[in-house]
């Protein structure tokens, strides 16, 4: 396979393939020639460099992953071993193709997307805004940067406990907002109109430190002379942002879009702690439930494979779509 140097993705038309060498007489000589090709030499180097990570990936991600494909085709017993062949029934059930007309899993996939659409763009935009703010040339800016980053030091579990109390009507923290929105329930979490947004706000807060620090690092990596020459040309402020900062942040923002999308479609701790997985009822929570509470490892495996497929397709789309517009320096 021929690949683009910079993106690592396959090129549409492979042009670098070496012509077939017919002049070699022995098999060994052919092999030697092949091995001495720079790209093949690099392949061995690459495998060497990759090996520590690859061993871990294979042992702890791919082997269990393949096992879960196998499990997803079975009903599992109490020990988590396959007990009965089930074919693709689980997949049909999840995708509501089993003829029962029950669509709760499809609905929860929709909810997951709704949630991701709230969290990903807002989280990245606010992170970008904070990063821009944190480039202000004032004294003590480091204190602010630390504060902006602080949420990555707080686990989702801790954040969830804290936010559950913020939304708890007994603490009275947000009662003014409940009144303002004229909700008919005591908490933002128990109103249909606001529960999803309430979970999203907590998630955005929790992810902000990460989005901020990555964006800031990206901005800091932009060579200052670009801004200086732009300033000489009389371009500052918005123009500099629009035509220098934003384009050069491309790889960083692409990275954030991909990571945030994967993260928010896999999010469950916040739902677990804030709403115990009830309305909004997202797909990962359903997966977790069938895994942790129902101990249906086969079904949970099928659900996680559906999620895997969704993430895979999305990432490829994002990568293809955005990569065209991303400039690597």
């Amino acid at each position, binding site marked *: 396979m021929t690949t683009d140097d910079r993106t690592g993705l396959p090129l549409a038309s492979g042009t670098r393939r070496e012509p077939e060498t017919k002049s070699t007489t022995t098999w060994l000589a052919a092999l030697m020639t092949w091995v001495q090709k720079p790209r093949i030499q690099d392949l061995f180097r690459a495998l060497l460099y990759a090996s520590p990570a690859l061993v871990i990936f294979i042992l702890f991600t791919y082997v269990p992953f393949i096992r879960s494909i196998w499990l997803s085709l079975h009903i599992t017993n109490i020990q988590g071993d396959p*007990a009965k062949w089930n074919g693709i029934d689980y997949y049909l059930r999840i995708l509501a193709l089993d003829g029962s007309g029950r669509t709760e899993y499809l609905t929860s996939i929709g909810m997951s997307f709704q949630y991701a659409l709230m969290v990903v763009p807002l989280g990245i935009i606010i992170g970008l805004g904070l990063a821009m703010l944190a480039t202000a040339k004032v*004294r003590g800016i*480091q204190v602010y940067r630390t504060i902006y980053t602080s949420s990555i030091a707080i686990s989702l579990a801790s954040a969830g406990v804290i936010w559950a109390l913020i939304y708890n*009507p007994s603490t009275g923290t947000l009662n003014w907002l409940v009144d303002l929105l004229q909700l008919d*329930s*005591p908490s933002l979490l128990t109103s249909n109109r606001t529960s999803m947004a309430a979970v999203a706000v907590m998630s955005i807060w929790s992810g902000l430190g990460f989005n901020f620090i990555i964006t800031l690092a990206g901005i800091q990596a932009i060579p200052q002379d670009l801004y200086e020459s732009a300033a000489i040309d009389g371009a500052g402020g918005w123009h500099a942002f629009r035509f220098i900062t934003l384009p050069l942040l491309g790889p960083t923002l692409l990275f954030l879009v991909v990571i945030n999308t994967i993260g928010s479609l896999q999010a469950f701790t916040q739902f677990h702690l804030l709403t*115990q997985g009830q309305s909004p009822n997202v797909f990962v929570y359903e997966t977790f*439930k069938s895994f942790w*509470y*129902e101990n249906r490892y086969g079904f949970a495996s099928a659900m996680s494979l559906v999620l895997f497929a969704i993430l895979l397709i999305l990432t490829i789309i994002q990568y293809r779509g955005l990569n065209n517009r991303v400039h690597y320096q």
Partner: protein
Amino acid sequence: MKKSTVLMTVVLFALLLPMMLLSIVPAAMQDATATPLPTITSVPPVAKPEGAIEVSFWYGLGGQLGNVVQETVNRYNQSQSTYYINAIFQSSYDDTINKINAGLASGDLPNLAQIFEAGTQRMIDTGSIVPVQSLMERDGLLSVIDDMEPAVRANYVVNGTLYSAPFNSSTAMLFIDRAAFAAAGLNPDEPLVTFEQVAEYARALTVKDANGNVTRYGIGLYPEGWFMEQIHAVHNAFMGTPDNGIFGRMEQYTYNDAIGVQWLEWMKQLVDEGVAIYYGPGGGNAAGAAYANGEIAMHFSSIAGLRSFIASAERSGAGVEVGTVYMPRNEGVEGKTIVGGASLWITNTGTPEQQEGAWDFIKWALTPEIQAFWSINTGYIPVLQSAYELPEMQEALVRYPQFQVAVDQLRGAEIAPANTAHISGTFVPMRLDVVKAIDDFIMGNAPSAQAALDAAVASSNEILEEYNLTVAP
């Protein structure tokens, strides 16, 4: 170092230093301001004696109740030196049984485990346990079973066998604020039993300020699977067939019946009227806090929390007087509430000595003295009737008349299959389905209570049927 870095460090440490410093100040220096609590607090485990056989014990009660578990274990360890119980907290009841599930394949099981009643069938199905009854028979201790609180005994005897030793048993109550009752001109001592009465009282107990904002709701509500079981039991209605699974494996759930629908509609009616406040899934703690703080006048909870509520109500200073009444019901029904809580299971994976050690601890725990100690310090019901003969227990009953109400409620009707237990291998997901049904209906996501419950039962049965397929018949 740059100035900004210094400033940043100063700010952060100004926030955090006091807590670091104060965390190393000896407690004795601070006791002047602390109000001593009558409850058991700090309990590090006692040291293991040389040569004692270690018995691992997983438990799932955290917080204050967990302290009492550790204290009980400490007392056992100090009472003898042959065995040493190593009590290990496993985060929650759910996580305890899930860890056991995960450990089945790898043989990684504790010698002794505290498992909630929802896990009974699942534990039996592991095939990795030693039925407590067989040990009682061997040691001629069947009289202990006779001494058990009848409702407790009935709850844990499955298909004629007592598999595990009841340890902490409770039941559901309606907690009331007696002071709020008096203020609203209601008599807190008058028996309050029917749905209509509770609804009526909730209306009377709701207080609004001059602007029409509610300052105290009549009742606080939250979705809880256990209450659905309780409501069925007081109406002597089965939740699943055949016979709630107590004589043979449960095959179908049937809680989408008239009682189930009535329970959901009753709750939603109160919420819609504005006399109940809905705390949502997992809202039990928030509702409990609101109750102790005088924000709601009635609250459903387990009697195990009695001591907590009394202590909290005193601390909150809102003048709440804790009282308990029976779970609501329709006129003229003849059921009673059922037992909840947890029991102790011996696994067969340890050495024979470890199994003996686990059994020795159970024998010790099933004595009137320990049962009284456990009950007095928590609010759980003693599992042995003989515990009530002890002076300390009698004193506790005088001191906490609310507790007597719970005992009366449990003994208030003849034991019948529909009010003893619910046994199935998929109890935990069933409860989640019930929570979802209640939440969907109250939040307006389901067209009717019947529709919400039908969907829940369909889900519960799907899981149950699959589970039954995978266990040996």
